[in-house]
Every structure is written in C-alpha cells, then in structure tokens.
C-alpha cells in the first residue's frame, strides 16, 4: 500500500443553521496514492475541494465514505490521531494564524512540547529546524516583526521540528509577495530533495505546480487529471475549461503550436521555452 492511500473519499459540509439542513458535498469519491518522497501539487480553482482534501490527509476532516490511510494508519480510528499528525504536518495560508508563541524559537518548539519530547532534545531539534529553513539568526525575534515569507518559514520550521514524513501545504504562498513566495518554494523543494520529505502542495500558482513531480487536478470534488506536470499542462484546452491557467510559457508554446509552428507543447519552464524558441528561429 502506498504511503498516503485514499480510496473513494467522500466528504460534505453540513450547514445545520438552515432548515432543513443543507448538505454540501465537497469531495465526491477521490482515489489518490502518494508514495514516500514524492512532491505532488494539487491544483483546482476556489471551491474545488482541494483544501478539504488536504485536511482529510491529517485527520482534521474524517471521511464520510471511503478511506484514508497514512503509513497504514486509518484516519477514522481516533487512537491514530496523534501518530498521523506527527507523520503529516500541515502549513496553512495565513502565517499569522499559525504562530502560537511570542518568540520564534518558542513557536518552533510548540509541537514538540505537545508531544512531550524531552527538553534537551527539543532544544536540539528546534535549532536544527530553524537552521534548515534559514531562520536561525531570528530565533529570539518576535514573530510579528518578521516578513510574510519569514513567518511562513518559521511555520514550516515548526512542522519539520516534528520530523514528519510528509508536509501538506495549503496555499502557503497565497498571501506572500514574490520574494517571500520564492523563499518558501525554495525551502519546500530543499526539504523534498535533501531531506526526502513527502510534499503535498495545494496551490493555484501554475509556476509552482510545474516544479512538482506530479500534478493532480481537482474539480468539483473529483479528480480530473493525475500525471507529470508536462502531461497535465500540455492539455491547455482542458485546463482552460476547468477555469485554470497554465504556465505562461506553456501558453506561448501552445499558441505557436496551434498556428502551425513546429514546437512541443510540453514546455513548462522558461529555460525549455527559450531553448525551443531558439531552435525554432534557427531553422
């Protein structure tokens, strides 16, 4: 069985303020397998159910139908709650709302304190986590004086101090400026490549999704596509119909391709695009 194993997952929010209660089904039978060490991006426009899916992975949301297991642990079993959350860390959109303490290092220590780790070990892991995300010099700072990108890195440090196998990031860059976005993406990729952490990145930035090993497209609570970025983005028309963009370079390549130029439409990075255009011009 794969590391994260999702079968026939259904989930709905019930609004019981209305009479009769309104049931809003957000996930309609999702199957998804994520292996250890993978970097998966989940794409979908607002209300597609991608955040709900993310919260199903670490047992914040429990499946209504179907099953979700992490490392063989079923999320429906309450005894598995802490072991699952220890394995799957989660980073949210707004960095302000996930920092608990008034000093950076205290915040990073929060999860470890909750798990009852021994004080010296906490100290060691907090320093290590802060160094990994490059925030060690800021360990004594007050979080509200940091920039958005720095705050988000502190939030990530707070998760990696737990030494999780997997980190789920729910639009971690949505509230950041380009510089902060870059810092965070670099950190995420480094964690994946150098530390072998499984990454599930929920995003609506195509450029970010293009950096993943695999892209899963969700729409209306269903999985529409699940493939390598090149294969997903090359279907420019399908993506457009779902209300999603493709990276700019892919769009250019697709446009040229449709107008009869001999250029591959599986272009997702700027370098590839430059190369392709260059060889096209040489002809």
């Amino acid at each position: 069985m794969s590391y994260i194993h999702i079968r026939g997952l259904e989930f709905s929010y019930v609004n019981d303020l209305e009479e009769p209660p309104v049931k809003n089904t957000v996930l309609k039978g999702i199957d998804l397998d994520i292996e250890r060490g993978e970097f998966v991006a989940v794409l979908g426009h607002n209300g597609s159910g991608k955040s709900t899916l993310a919260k199903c992975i670490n047992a914040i949301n429990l499946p209504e139908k179907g099953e979700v297991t992490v490392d063989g642990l079923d999320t429906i079993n309450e005894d598995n709650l802490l072991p699952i959350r220890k394995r799957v860390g989660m980073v949210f959109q707004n960095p302000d709302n996930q920092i608990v303490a008034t000093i950076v290092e205290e915040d990073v220590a929060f999860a470890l304190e909750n798990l009852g780790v021994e004080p010296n070990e906490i100290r060691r892991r907090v320093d290590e986590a802060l160094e990994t995300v490059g925030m060690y010099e800021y360990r004594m700072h007050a979080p509200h004086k940091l920039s958005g990108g720095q705050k988000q890195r502190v939030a990530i440090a707070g998760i990696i101090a737990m030494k999780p196998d997997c980190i789920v990031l729910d639009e971690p860059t949505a509230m950041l400026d380009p510089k902060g976005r870059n810092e965070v993406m670099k950190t995420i990729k480094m964690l994946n490549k150098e530390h072998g952490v499984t990454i599930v990145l929920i995003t609506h930035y195509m450029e970010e999704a293009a950096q993943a090993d695999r892209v899963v497209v969700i729409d209306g609570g269903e999985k529409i596509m699940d493939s390598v970025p090149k294969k997903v983005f090359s279907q420019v028309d399908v993506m457009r119909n779902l209300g999603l963009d493709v990276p700019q370079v892919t769009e250019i390549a697709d446009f040229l391709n449709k107008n009869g130029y001999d250029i591959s439409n599986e272009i997702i990075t700027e370098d590839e695009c430059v190369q392709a255009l260059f060889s096209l011009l040489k002809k």
Partner: protein
Amino acid sequence: MITDITIGQYFPGKSAVHRLDARVKILLTIAFIVMLFIADDIKGLGVGVVFTLLTFLISRIPFKMMWKSIKPILIILIITAMLNLFFVHTGTPYFEWKFIKITDKGVETAVFMVVRIVCLIIGTSLLTYTTSPIDLTDAIERLLSPLKKIKVPVHELAMMMTIALRFIPTLIEETDKIMSAQKARGADMETGSIFKKAKALIPILIPLFVSSFRHAEELALAMECRCYHGGEGRTKMKQLKLRLADLWGTLYLALFFAGVIVINKIG
C-alpha cells in the same frame, strides 16, 4: 502605522533584578506586599522604603518609567491623604475650626498611608518592568500548577494568556488597516461629540470582531495540526532553574523582612 509595539511594560535590561527567576520574583513580590502591611508604624515602614528604593536603584529602571506608573494613582493618593488628615481625630490637635480638626496622629497616618501605597506601586511595577510577559506567564503557570489537582485549568489559562499576548500586535495592525479602510471611505473619526465618536468606532469594532473569530478558528486548526491536545503530557523547552542569585535575592528580602518584624516588636 503603529509599528514598534512593546507588549506590557517590560523594560529589557541585565540588572540583578532582571536576572532573578520569574517565579522567585513573583513570590518575593508577594512577600514584599505582606512586609509593607505588617509594618505598623512609620519606623517599620521606613525599612520598607529603604528596601523599595534600593531595589529600584539596583534594577536601573529609569525614574521616568516609574513616574508613569505612579501618575495614574495620584488622585487616589490625594484622596487617601485627605481622608486620613480630616477623619483621624486622636492625638494632639494642631488646628481646629468648626468640624475640621487636624491632629498630629492624623498627619502621621496620612503620610504613612501615602508612603505605603507608593512603595506598593513601585515594588509591584518593578516585577512587570523587569520580567518579560512570557516569563511571567510561564512562572504563573508553574507556580499555580499544584492547583491542577483540584481541577483548576492552569495550563489552559496560561495558554490563553500567551495567545492573547501573541495576538495583540496582530490585532493592532489589523485595527490600523480597518481604520485606514474606513477613512478611505469617508468615515470621520476625529470630529463631533463624544457620542458621535463612539458611534464612529462601530464600523471598526465589528470587522475587528469578525476577523478575531476567523483568527481563532484558524489558529485552533493549526494548533491541532501540531498535535496540541491540552496540557496533559506536555513538556517545556525552557526549563526554569533556580540559581545562586535567586537565593541571594531571597535572603536580601528576608533581611529587610526581619528588620520590620524587629522594629515592630521594639517600637
């Protein structure tokens, strides 16, 4: 823009008072208050005054800071002095006119009371001036932890305090943003009667409340994701350790305390 916000009234420093363990400081402050109240004449109180001034000097807190915490209670001081001056009728009278009678005992009690209150304020402010809010919350949690046995939610209270401290700057920033947004839409907050001004605050308070709830919800989620499950089985990264300095600090107060008791007995 309100940028550099200091929380509470902590005045960072490296004096001997700053370096004392926060738990010890809280206990010593309580002992200090007791000391001021058992001193029953002006001589005993004198010992308390010496202690207060000496500690104040050691802490190197600027006089201006201290004046800030005494200023708000000036009125109370004056009223206390007046009441004692006019309503203590024992002792030899200095001055008598119709129903007003001022006696030597009255003057003495008035001075005694005022000095006691001023000492009280200086002593307790020293605690908050020399201890960071985080250390203070931490110390309170630890000092109250025996109460857990009788089901007092000590950990939860301390957690609430920490989160409140953490969110003060965030909420101030947000208030600032909302205020600018409302001003941009023509809200007038400066002119008009006091009622008008109070009314003008409503469009600021409502969005602020709504966003606090949103903050709370997301924070709770993020805490859950980081395995928060109450105070049970929790450890702390920072272990508070008593050092030799804390013993010296305790002895220092004990000496003065003994002085007050001795003077009480003799006097």
